[in-house]
C-alpha cells in the first residue's frame, strides 16, 4: 500500500462521516426517514471508487456503510433530541445537491456542514411572539371572540416561552408537553376568571396547538408508506405519547378546577 492509496482511504472515511453528518442534521430537525437515507446514499455514491453505499436510518440513530476497494467502512451515529427546524432541512438539501453535482473537497464540505448546523433563522423572542400570534388566530378560527383572541395571544406566548426554556434543560418530550399544556390550562382558567377571556375551552384548545404532535403524525405516515416501518412505528409512538402527555397536563388541571380549588 503506497502513500496515495492510504490517502484515498482517509478520504473515503471522511466522505462517510460527511454523509452521516448531513443525514443526522436532517433527521434532528424533523425530516422524513427516506429523505435522510437518500441524502446519505447520494453523497456517498457521488465520489468515484465507491461501489456500494447503504444507509439505515431510524429516528434514534443512523447506520451507514460503504464499500471502498473491497473494504467495507461502517459508521454509526446516535440521535438523541429532535426539534423542528425546516430551514435546516432545506439548507442541507441544497448542500447535498451542491456537493453531489460539484467537485467540492470533502474537508470543505464538512466545514460547511458544521457552519450550517449553527445557523439560526429567527431569534427566540420573534419565535415566541409568533407563537402567540399563531395561537391567537387559531382561537378566532375555532370561533372565539376578540377577547379570546387577546387572551389566547397571552397564553400562547407564555406556553411557547416556557416550552423553549424547558427545552434548554434537555428534558424528555413528555415533561415538556405536559408542563406546557398544564400551563395553558392554568392561564386560560385564570384569564377567564378575571374576565379577559370568554370561552375557556377555545383558549385552551388554541394554546395547546403548538404542542400538538402534528409533525410526528405527518412523518410517521410518510415513513410508513415509504416502507420504513421501524421509523414509522417509532414516530407513531412519539405522536401517541405526546398526545397523552398533553391530555395528562390538561386533565390534571381541569380536575383540580372542577374540584373548585382554583
Amino acid at each position, binding site marked *: 500500500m503506497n502513500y496515495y492509496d492510504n490517502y484515498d482511504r482517509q478520504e473515503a472515511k471522511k466522505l462517510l462521516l460527511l454523509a452521516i453528518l448531513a443525514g443526522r442534521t436532517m433527521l434532528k430537525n424533523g425530516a422524513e426517514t427516506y429523505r435522510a437515507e437518500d441524502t446519505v446514499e447520494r453523497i456517498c455514491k457521488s465520489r468515484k471508487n465507491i461501489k456500494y453505499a447503504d444507509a439505515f436510518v431510524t429516528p434514534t440513530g443512523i447506520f451507514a456503510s460503504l464499500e471502498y476497494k473491497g473494504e467495507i467502512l461502517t459508521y454509526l451515529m446516535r440521535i438523541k433530541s429532535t426539534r423542528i427546524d*425546516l430551514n435546516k432541512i432545506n439548507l442541507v438539501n441544497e448542500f447535498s445537491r451542491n456537493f453531489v453535482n460539484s467537485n467540492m473537497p470533502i474537508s470543505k464540505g464538512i466545514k460547511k456542514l458544521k457552519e450550517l448546523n449553527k445557523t439560526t433563522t429567527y431569534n427566540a423572542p420573534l419565535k415566541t411572539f409568533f407563537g402567540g400570534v399563531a395561537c391567537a388566530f387559531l382561537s378566532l378560527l375555532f370561533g372565539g371572540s376578540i377577547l379570546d383572541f387577546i387572551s389566547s395571544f397571552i397564553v400562547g406566548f407564555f406556553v411557547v416561552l416556557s416550552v423553549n426554556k424547558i427545552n434548554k434543560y434537555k428534558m424528555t418530550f413528555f415533561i415538556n408537553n405536559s408542563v406546557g399544556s398544564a400551563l395553558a390550562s392554568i392561564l386560560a382558567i385564570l384569564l377567564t376568571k378575571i374576565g379577559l377571556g370568554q370561552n375557556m375551552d377555545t383558549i385552551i384548545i388554541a394554546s395547546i396547538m403548538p404542542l400538538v404532535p402534528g409533525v410526528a403524525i405527518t412523518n410517521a405516515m410518510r415513513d410508513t408508506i415509504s416502507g420504513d416501518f421501524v421509523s414509522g412505528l417509532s414516530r407513531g409512538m412519539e405522536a401517541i405519547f405526546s398526545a397523552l402527555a398533553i391530555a395528562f397536563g390538561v386533565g390534571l388541571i381541569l380536575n383540580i378546577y372542577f374540584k373548585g380549588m382554583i
Partner: protein
Amino acid sequence: MEIIKNFLFSFLSTVGFNIIFSAPKGLVLKSGFVGGIGWIVLYSTSIYFNSSIISTFFAALTVGILGELFSRHYKKPATVFIIPGIIPLVPGAGMYYTMLALVEKDFLAAADKGTETLFIAAAISIGLIVSTTLSRSIKRVKYKR
C-alpha cells in the same frame, strides 16, 4: 365573506407556525397560503358533507397536493410546506373535549369524541398518503419516459 375571514385567520396562524418551526425566510407566506387553502377546503366541505372526518381528509389531500406542487416549483423539500399546512387540521379540539369528558366521568361522550379524534388523525394521514403516492407515481412515469 365568511370564507375570506377564515382564509385570513388560518393564513396568519400558519404563518405563525412557520416562524415557530423556522421555515426558510422566503417561504413563510407561501406555506401560509397552503395552510389557508387547506382550512378553506375543510370549512367548505364540512358544510357540504356535514362530517369533520371526510372534510379533514379532503383538506389534508389538498395540503399534500399543494405542498408537492410547490416543492416541485420552488425546488424545496415538500415537508417545508406540508408540516405547517397540516397544523390547523390537527384535532386539538377533539383531544381537549375527550379529556374534558373523561374528567367529568362522562365515558360515553369520551368514547364518542375519542374515536372521532382518532379518525380525524387517520384522515389526515390518509390524505397525505394519497397525495404523496400520487406525486411519486407521476415522478416514476416521467422518469421511465
